[in-house]
């Protein structure tokens, strides 16, 4: 019994020493960060809904690293040093990504240590002078919508909306706005206004009553969204916290 125990100790020591070789890469440590901007102003999206792809040519296959922009239009990736190409796939995002012959342009990124980039795109619309405030028992949004792409490529506003959520993830998605069941009927904390009903795109006023929550909290998060006709992803403004 004693001998076998000794063997086990010896063997495991041997195993642990033998395995102490360097057999791994260091984890990637170069931080790529960036934003999607129009004239320096960041665009907002729904979380995880606007993807981007990073290709690193020269390693056999050509499969991309897929990730998506954050709510505030930010991108983050931890990479190895090297040459990368970044692209937003066709048909994604409430903006026009530069294209050549119908194929999205790649942006060359040379990673060496950290790097911050701003990706300049042309959105269909921009949300301007937005303000979300509390007024009595309501949350009130005042903003304007400016059309950026006009002419043949221009698109109409499908609808504009104010969404309210308990957490800082706010969007049109079912789990990113407050939905309460009252007598089995959904009451959604949002106000949507169809594009045709907008009288003055420069002064839009939306109101959502402050919902009664099961667990009381004295703050909520509001966000303005614009749906553009024929474009899948909504355009959002920043998430604004209101306290009451």
């Amino acid at each position, binding site marked *: 019994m004693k001998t076998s125990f000794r063997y086990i100790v010896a063997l495991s020591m041997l195993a642990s020493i033998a395995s102490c070789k360097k057999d791994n890469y260091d984890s990637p440590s170069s931080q790529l960060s960036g934003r999607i901007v129009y004239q320096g102003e960041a665009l907002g999206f729904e979380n995880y809904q606007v993807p981007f792809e990073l290709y690193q040519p020269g390693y*056999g*296959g*050509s*499969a*991309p690293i897929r990730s998506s922009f954050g709510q505030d239009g930010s991108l983050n990736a931890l990479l190895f040093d090297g040459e990368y190409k970044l692209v937003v*796939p*066709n*048909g*994604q995002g409430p903006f026009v990504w530069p294209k050549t012959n*119908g194929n999205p342009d790649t942006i060359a990124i040379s990673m060496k240590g950290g790097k911050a980039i701003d990706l300049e795109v042309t959105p269909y619309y921009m949300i301007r002078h937005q303000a979300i405030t509390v007024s009595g028992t309501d949350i009130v949004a005042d903003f304007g919508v400016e059309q950026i792409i006009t002419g043949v490529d221009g698109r109409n506003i499908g609808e504009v909306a104010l969404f309210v959520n308990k957490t800082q993830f706010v969007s*049109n*998605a*079912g*789990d990113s706005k407050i*939905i309460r*069941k009252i007598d*089995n*009927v*959904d009451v*959604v904390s949002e106000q949507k206004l169809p594009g045709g009903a907008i009288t003055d795109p420069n002064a839009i006023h939306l109101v959502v009553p402050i919902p009664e929550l099961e667990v009381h909290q004295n703050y909520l998060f509001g966000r303005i969204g614009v749906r553009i006709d*024929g474009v*899948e992803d909504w355009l959002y403004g920043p998430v604004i916290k209101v306290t009451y």
Partner: protein
Amino acid sequence: MKKILSLSILSLAVAFSGCKKDSEFLDIPPISIIPTETAFSDPALVISVLGDLYNRMVDFSSLDNGWQSFADFSETFPSENGSYWIVKNTGWGYGNWGLYDYGYVRDLNLFMQRIEASDKLKAEDKKRFAAEGRFLRASFYFEMVKRMGGVPLILEPLQYDYKGDPTYLQRPRAKESEIYDFVIAEAEAIKNDLPTSLEDKSRATKAAALAMESRAALYAASIAKYGATTPSVSLPGGEVGIPASMADAYYQKSLEASMQIINGEAGPLSLYKSLPVLSENFAAIFLDKSSTNTESIFIEDFKAFAGKTHGYTTNDQPYSISDEGGDAGRLNPSLNLVSNFEMLDGTFAPIPATDGSGKAIAYENQEDIFAGRDARLAGTVLLPNGLFKGKRVDIQAGNITAAGQIILGEGDLAEKFIGLDGPVNGREFRTQTGFYVRKWLDPTIGSGRRGRGSDVAFIRYRYAEILLNAAEANFELGQADLAADFMNQVRSRAGITVPLTGADVTFDRIVHERRVELAFEGHILFDYKRWRIAHKIWVGEPTGIVEIKTNLGKALQRSTQPWGLWPYQLADGPDAGKWIYKEVLPSNVTGTNRFLLGNYYSQIPDNVISANPRIIRQPNQ
């Protein structure tokens, strides 16, 4: 010394005995592999090769790829702890439903090449085998084009020459329309080489080829027509998307194929009308494998005690009637689907749980609330107090007082008033919507046991679908009266008394009829995709009860979360002992279905694109 001697003799003996000629020693015919020439010299052996190819056919939801393949899209609730993700998901990945299997295509191409090369088979056998191979290949390309759009059209086995340059094997994607054209042309080319006799429905027949043509041409036509509503779901080279101008020709093609079946050119087919009770009759279509079933056209057959069975009945039988204690009840049809079965006079009405003033209606018998509905409801869904294997299911959510207080019992009797079959939120294997599935559920004794399994056949094509295909093609070609005739045949079989007129037939009607007639037969996803309405129905926002009760029978009725309908027995008051119902969203339903434009065509895997740069990517992903 002696030892050395004996050892050396022994080793010499070993050395000499190894001195056979290599050719004598190594060239032994293998006993576990049948060489190609032998296999393709005898019809019986060819059938076993063919059997493997038939077994590898792919269906979207079929009895042998698990109950989960029936479960999604809010038509059902999945009552299994490991499967609630289906109703917690907020959408589908771009890769979902993908199919890209050129290994199978290669095997089919090899099969055809070898049949062609064989000189020992009779000419008539050769003809039929070759036609079956082409049928399987066309079916598979149809299955791929449904999911991926245009794919490379490979019609001969490709061989790599190991010289380091595979570019000559890299084929680009064909146009989506070219793949549909191929399927249609193949069906036309082989239909007369296949038997018209419908004795063996698990093998390709003339009717099967025409049914495939009917469906494929209809898909192509609707993609051409309705693809115009989603211009971004297309590729400039036509790999995805079909020009709208081609729609009418495809509808015409589909109609011609359907009419050949309807006119009896492909064997005696008709609607199944064998049992006097219409709902029993409808359920029996999917159980009857005898020659009285004149409705099924092409099936995937199973055989108990012979190695080919499936677990559909084991997985989905009612809990209280389970043959396999505790293994049951996974597939619970939703109120969304149930409400969409019409009244017998052809009008739509929500399941009447409450009256106009919002007060709950009390029913003498549990099943009374479903009275006067389309017989397909009770044929597709096992309703509360429904009959299965001679027993009634026990579905009760509790007792309730006239004042509306729910009583479940106290102390030891904590759940006294809950049915053996549920519903209780989160209690798996029992219904959580108040319904069980009935379609495909096998009433044979022992069919619910894991060991025996069920041998109910999966019907891939049936006559009623052909009628609906013909109705849709007629409607789209502006012949609404003819469309109404075909739909009325299917509807009167379900007991609907008021026939549709040409003016009643609308797009909504077409969509609705297919949803209720062909529920749980693997159609809904591809139907919604080809009409380009999937992204308008599965919008990613919750489905409220108002939505469940209104817009019934409308193509664009939102259906993102599966609702349930829970029965309670009244404990006191004038109606004591009667039943009332409450609409309930099962608590595990926290997600919402969201279908993105990028979901219309499944992602082509990265390794495929990386290996073949001529493959272009799907739109919107």
